[in-house]
């Protein structure tokens, strides 16, 4: 018998072979997955093509006429196929030459877009750009430099990479494997007492089932993959991974569907949390494509106090006709008004309903004492927060069953949540609340409100604070923004910085306000007062706002439809004809553009209808990327000798390479017929392309890529080439 190698080495070998086997399995599995995806994709493509084919067959298309003008001469040309085998006849068919069709320029695929689209920085290089074998061979330094710019290349780490999943499987496989190995080893090596062996095996069995395999395995793995940690760490990790995955907790802030069967009774903040965090107040959309931060509404102030109390009963059964109801409402109204001046209370999330609450009544109110207790009068602007404040009671569903129906009607979790939501908006207008809830009448709502108010009396402990969460998907963009905001150099430079709504409740917009620092006006999205000195007042023009007489035009801003009420920017939403000529970008009043091979190079953009001088033609749209990302991408674009990068401001660059609109095909010219202008449009910088002179229909559009300062040059590949030489 051969002398067995030392155990450590043996284990290492096992680890390696097992690892390879698992990797092989994974690869096969992945290949299968890819195949399946490919097949399903094929099916999709075929479906789509058959739809397209159907459309084409419906199109009124004449088949290409064969060049029959040559007549017999053309038909004489025969194509023949001869076979060396005797059995096959020579096949011949008349050649039918098709008329030549001139080719079209090269085009990389891109996605159409009419509004800028912010994307995150790419820290991983998705693929090594290919631009012909020669370039890469000649310029290896370029590739190395390129890869250095990124954290890594996609798929690069695969060799030697060990994921949690593989790790777990590896340990398990080795564990299985070790059992009989050890047996053999033991049998061969020593003649141990069978009882002992049995005992050992039992122990090992139990350890196999009971979870932690022998240290030998972890030692071997640790020696094979030193960067994954020591033996102990690996062991701990394995233990963690053994935790049953079934215990995946529901994300804490996910509220059950209010329309679903498991709707729970939750606080107002919780019910509205998703709506508040995801809504973009600037785009009016949820999780918009352009703005990384969405300010939550509790920092917004009510501009008009529009809560109208319905003093008249809504019907014969109205709660207002009940005894004491009116007093309750009035009192509560006072309370809530006072309450609004107060700092927000953090309410206990899981609060048990006190037994005394079972028979509530208007008489049981002791508001003052409670208020006094938590009275922190402030004059801060955040007092508006309390508007959302509602008493909270989270009642488990089981509780509901236990509690005898002391109230007139049973309240479901959804109804209770809805009540709290609406109470934050309608306050004690229970008639309206009842109408909106739909399933309860105002008396029931009133009764419930009284109950809730009673609960409210109970002193509250701080805790269960709802985090002031902001969804942040652009972490890098955020970092960049703060960096740029902090490193604003001197006021003399005519550099333009991105606008970010300011939010500093403690002081007015002074020299520390980010808007002031970046030399931007405060916009309607800022948290400052309407009377803020840094706010742009808008124009009062009655003309077209296309001269420097208009303050908006002078400040290179488009008219704000919420500020400029006289020029027409806030009218005729459905019409293309607006008296104000300074709101074309926001309304997307672009000209009809056409695409055709350019007279100069590649593709070109052509205009369908004639335009006047200074008329708006189109917005230059694309991906909004950071300057750093633009630097990285620009390096590749320079190699391709084609760049769609367009400097927007000091923080961002518009890249129309992957996404854009038809104006992206407009070529550069030193004697152009269009010009580009970065305009502040409702808080966003956007690039407008305007007519430099009157342009006739069918003319090709050109603009000067070097539209701004010299530093813009470095983002335009071709110009840079010229510059260097």
């Amino acid at each position: 018998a051969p002398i067995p190698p030392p155990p450590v080495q043996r284990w290492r070998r096992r680890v390696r072979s097992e690892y390879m086997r698992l990797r092989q399995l994974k690869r096969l599995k992945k290949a299968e997955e890819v195949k399946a995806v490919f097949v399903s994709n094929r099916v999709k493509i075929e479906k789509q093509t058959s739809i397209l084919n159907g459309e084409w067959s419906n199109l009124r298309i004449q088949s290409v006429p064969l060049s029959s003008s040559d007549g017999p001469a053309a038909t004489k040309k025969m194509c023949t196929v001869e076979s060396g085998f005797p059995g096959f006849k020579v096949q011949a068919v008349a050649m039918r030459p098709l008329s030549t069709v001139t080719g079209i320029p090269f085009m990389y695929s891109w996605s159409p877009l009419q509004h800028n689209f912010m994307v995150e920085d790419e820290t991983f290089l998705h693929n090594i750009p290919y631009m012909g074998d020669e370039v890469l061979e000649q310029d290896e330094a370029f590739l190395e430099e390129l890869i250095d710019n990124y954290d890594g290349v996609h798929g690069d780490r695969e060799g030697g990479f060990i994921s949690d999943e593989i790790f777990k499987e590896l340990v398990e496989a080795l564990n299985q494997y070790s059992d009989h190995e050890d047996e053999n080893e033991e049998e061969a090596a020593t003649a141990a007492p069978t009882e002992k062996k049995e005992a050992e095996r039992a122990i090992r069995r139990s350890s196999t089932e009971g979870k932690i395999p022998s240290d030998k395995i972890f030692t071997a793995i640790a020696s094979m993959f030193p960067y994954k940690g020591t033996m102990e760490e690996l062991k701990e990790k394995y233990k963690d991974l053994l935790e049953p995955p079934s215990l995946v907790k529901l994300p804490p802030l996910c509220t059950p569907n209010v329309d679903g069967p498991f709707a729970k009774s939750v606080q107002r903040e919780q019910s509205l949390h998703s709506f508040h965090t995801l809504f973009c107040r600037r785009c009016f959309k949820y999780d918009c494509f352009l703005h990384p931060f969405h300010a939550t509404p509790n920092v917004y102030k009510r501009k008009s106090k529009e809560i109208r109390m319905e003093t008249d009963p809504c019907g014969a059964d109205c709660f207002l006709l009940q005894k004491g109801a009116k007093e309750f409402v009035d009192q509560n109204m006072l309370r809530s008004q006072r309450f609004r001046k107060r700092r927000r209370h953090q309410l206990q999330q899981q609060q048990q309903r006190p037994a005394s609450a079972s028979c509530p009544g208007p008489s049981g109110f002791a508001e003052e004492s409670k208020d006094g207790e938590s009275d922190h009068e402030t004059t801060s602007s955040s007092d508006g927060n309390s508007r959302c404040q509602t008493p909270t009671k989270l009642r488990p569903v089981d509780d509901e069953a236990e509690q005898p129906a002391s109230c007139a009607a049973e309240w479901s979790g959804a109804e209770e949540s809805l009540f709290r939501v609406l109470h934050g908006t309608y306050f004690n207008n229970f008639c309206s609340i009842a109408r909106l809830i739909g399933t309860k009448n105002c008396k029931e709502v009133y009764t419930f409100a009284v109950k809730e108010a009673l609960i409210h009396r109970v002193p509250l402990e701080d805790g269960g604070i709802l985090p002031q969460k902001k969804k942040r998907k652009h972490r890098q963009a955020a970092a960049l923004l703060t960096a740029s905001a902090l490193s604003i150099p001197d006021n003399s430079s005519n550099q333009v910085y991105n606008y970010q709504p300011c939010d500093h409740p403690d002081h007015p917009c002074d020299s520390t306000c980010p808007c002031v620092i970046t030399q931007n006006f405060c916009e309607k999205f800022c948290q400052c007062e309407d009377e803020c000195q840094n706010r742009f007042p808008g124009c009062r023009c009655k003309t077209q706002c296309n001269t420097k007489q208009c303050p908006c035009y002078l400040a290179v801003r488009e008219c704000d439809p919420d500020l400029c009420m006289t020029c027409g920017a806030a009218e005729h939403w459905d019409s293309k004809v607006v008296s104000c000529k300074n709101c074309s970008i926001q309304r997307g009043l672009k000209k009809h553009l056409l695409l055709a091979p350019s007279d100069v190079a590649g593709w070109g953009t052509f205009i369908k209808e004639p335009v006047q001088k200074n008329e708006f033609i189109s917005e230059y749209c694309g991906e909004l990327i950071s300057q750093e990302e633009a630097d990285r991408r620009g390096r590749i674009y320079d190699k391709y000798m084609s760049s769609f990068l367009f400097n927007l401001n000091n923080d961002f660059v518009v890249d129309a390479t992957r996404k854009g609109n038809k104006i992206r095909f407009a070529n550069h010219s030193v004697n152009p017929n269009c010009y580009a202008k970065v305009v502040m449009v409702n808080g966003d910088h956007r690039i407008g392309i305007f007519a430099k002179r009157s342009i006739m229909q069918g003319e090709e559009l050109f603009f000067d890529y070097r539209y701004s300062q010299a530093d813009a040059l470095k983002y335009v590949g071709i110009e840079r080439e010229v510059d260097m030489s």
Partner: protein
Amino acid sequence: MPSARNSGHIMSGAGCKANGAVYPASSAMLNSVKKPKMEQIQADHELFLQAFEKPTQIYRFLRTRNLIAPIFLHRTLTFMSHRNGRSNAKRKAFKVDNMLQTVEKMKGEQDSPSLSSHLQLTFTGFFHKDEKPSQNSENEQNSVSLEVLLVKVCHKKRKDVSCPVKQVPTVVSSNEFEPSNSHMVKSYSLLFRVSRTGRRDANGLPNGEANENIDVRDTQSRKKRNSSHKEEGDTTETYVAQMTVFDKNRRLQLLDGEYEVSMQWMEDSPVSKKRATWETILDGKRLPPFETFSQGPTLQFTLRWTGEASGKSTAPVAKPLATRNSDSSGPMETRTSHHRATPLAVKESVSTDIQMRKELIPCEPRQKLRIFYQFLYNNNTRQQTEARDDLHCPWCTLNCSKLYSLLKHLKLSHSRFIFNYVPHPKGARIDVSINECYDGSYVGNPQDIHSQPGFAFSRNGPVKRTAVTHILVCRPKRTKPSLSEFLESEEGEMEQQRTYVSGHNRLYFHSDSCMPLRPQEMEVDSEDERDPEWLREKTATQLDEFTDVNEGEKEVMKLWNLHVMQHGFIADNQMNQAIILFVDDCGAHIVRRNLCRNFLLHLVSMHDFNLVGTATIDRAMARLKQIQEELPEDAEERQERALLAAAGSCNGGAASSAVGKQGKRTKSALTD
């Protein structure tokens, strides 16, 4: 002896030769260096060729092509209107009744295929290939005399009798062919005799270069002139040809038609003694019958039998350049004056030759306008000059007749060059340089290049075609022709060199598929929608990625996002309206999908953002309730579903659905 003077000149074989060749010693000289060395001349010549050879070749090719298959006629251009020999004079006298007369006359002719009473001969030219240096129709006219004799061959007499010298009748009355009393005429034949006097180089001027197409027409003489006396020229060559009119059996041999008769050279001897034969002998060798037409001198004429002696010729008649004014006093009169064949010779004193020269004078005040072409090349540092005495275009040999027309023609037809006019005491100087801005871009009718196969016609019915405007009549306001427009202008010259032609003279493509844009797709901008398909899908997937947003919320958010994307709301004060529109558009869907409470949350959230008022919430919810009531069956369905869900048979709980299909993002995961 009557003879006809033909104003036509001799067609030259050197038609395609261009300017340079004709000027063998074109005054190539450098103005700075007096006596340049040979190498210098050669080097300079190289530079000259480098600059001008290519475009000149192109224009010569185009000239030849235009001769073979003309795209347009120069005479139709406004600035070449003097080339148009046609006048509208006849129109003034036109009456509708005349049409009937004409037709009746034609009818009558057809009805009587027998002999018409008069033979009308219209001579169109005498061509002699051997004559190398051709004639210039403008400055120099060579003329020949033509005699036409009717030869009667009598049966009885032994001797050939040439009939009393018949005048050269254009119109021969048929009664001439009647048997005469004295003789029994056996056959009649026509004898043509052309005598030509060598008058060449009389005034020592170099002749123009090749004749061009139109010049051929210039050579046509519609009328022979009778002249009894010979020119005083020293050498006279005579060519003869004979054709039988009636043979012995009195059958007519010459029918209506155009004839080209091969002429034979003969000594200046009496014709009567010699019998013309159809055999052709050239240099003692017999030639195949048709060779003679390319070799020897030929006479072209049109023969017609007309019913009326005075009938006007219907043969195509072209008049020489610049004689259109003399229309009424011209050939027609002469013809009628001697329409009847008389034995007496009628003399025509005025030769066309002279007539033409006279008429040229008012066109161009200086009779011999000298034009200097100064070729600038090698960045306009070098120049070569050529002078010529006519107004022919040096590239396409077109006779422009006027300086203005020449300049205009050069500028418009030869845009590869830049021409600048400089007044000169002896005439004019034209500076020629290469147009660097010429890009050859197509400026014509888009239909001509993009016939757009497959788009124009269809078997399924009519389709739209590219709209093309064909200008039928255009009478723009024309400025008075002035030579000043060719003077070199200082500013904006380069800009103007590039011709901007407006209009959609190209084939457009769809930006998404790169497929050609069909004419009927021009009007709608199909690819510039605010919410392209991919973006709608993107917003949905992006929301689906959240793990801590429940299904109901997601669905309302998606609906709202699509609504905003579709309508492109931009202002806060649009929101109230937007919400009402949302209910109208998606209310039924919201009710059906059981999302009413989520929708209410959305409204309250909008209110929290201070975008809508409570009035809007009330209105929207009332509208939703109304929609709900209009969909009773859906409500039942919803109840059913709710029951099922409550019973637990439905797997879609809030908790499980919230975990989501593609849990990638959380709204709170990235919170600080």
